[in-house]
């Protein structure tokens, strides 16, 4: 199974690297050009979210991104290691956003973007961290 794993310290600069790697491997895995912007954005959001979780929890451990190229699909998993996860902010409207704490707002906007952009997405909370899994169709090259 052709696979790429990237682990990086929880720093914003590395989110750019993760985006670049995901888009490059996606393209090479046969994800359509029209979807690459979406991959770049969604992967960036998932990674920013994980970096934010680590930073807010004061964790030094790295964030992990796994890219799986399978026949017909390209799958990205971004995992943080924050045990329970900072609870999801209860932001449900634009008006709430304006009142929210900035970190909560970023987290809420990030998840809104991921779920609005990606058809096949799952946020899987676990006792050892949360995994965001996103899958795109890919024609075999």
């Amino acid at each position, binding site marked *: 199974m052709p696979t790429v794993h990237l682990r990086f310290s929880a720093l*914003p*600069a590395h*989110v*750019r690297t993760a985006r670049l790697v995901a888009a490059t491997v996606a393209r090479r895995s046969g994800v359509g050009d029209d979807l690459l*912007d979406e991959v*770049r*954005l969604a992967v*960036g*959001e998932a990674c*920013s979210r994980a*970096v934010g979780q680590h930073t807010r929890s004061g964790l030094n451990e790295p964030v992990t991104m796994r890219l799986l190229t399978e026949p017909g699909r390209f799958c990205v998993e971004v995992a943080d290691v924050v045990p329970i996860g900072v609870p999801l902010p209860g932001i449900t*409207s*634009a008006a709430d*956003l*304006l009142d929210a704490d*900035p970190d909560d*707002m*970023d987290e809420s*906007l*990030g998840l*809104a*973007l991921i779920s*609005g*952009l990606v058809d096949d997405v799952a946020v899987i909370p676990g006792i050892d961290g949360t995994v965001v899994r996103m899958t795109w169709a890919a024609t075999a090259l």
Partner: protein
Amino acid sequence: MDLSLTTRDEGDRTVVAVGGEIDVYTAPKLREQLVDLVNAGRYHLIVDMEGVEFLDSTGLGVLVGGLKRVRAHEGSLRLVCTQERILKIFRITGLTKVFPIHDTVSEALTAVG
């Protein structure tokens, strides 16, 4: 690509032209710029997004933060954007309801309300 910022005053309004990528890495620079403007008494901001190549949630968050700041002074924050892929990001997050979005800077300069 990195972020580029250019500001110019037009009467009581200030146009901030943004170029490049507004993301988790560069958004702090944009935040700083908006805070500086508000601290300098500029409460009517127009952010020209036509040169933006990439925008993520952190960038959106900075724009919302800017809006909160100018509103505290009865100000306004208008966006100029015609790029479909950027508009899509505002639509998905419901922010088209929060920001007035214009097609051109001159439209934004003359807009009221």
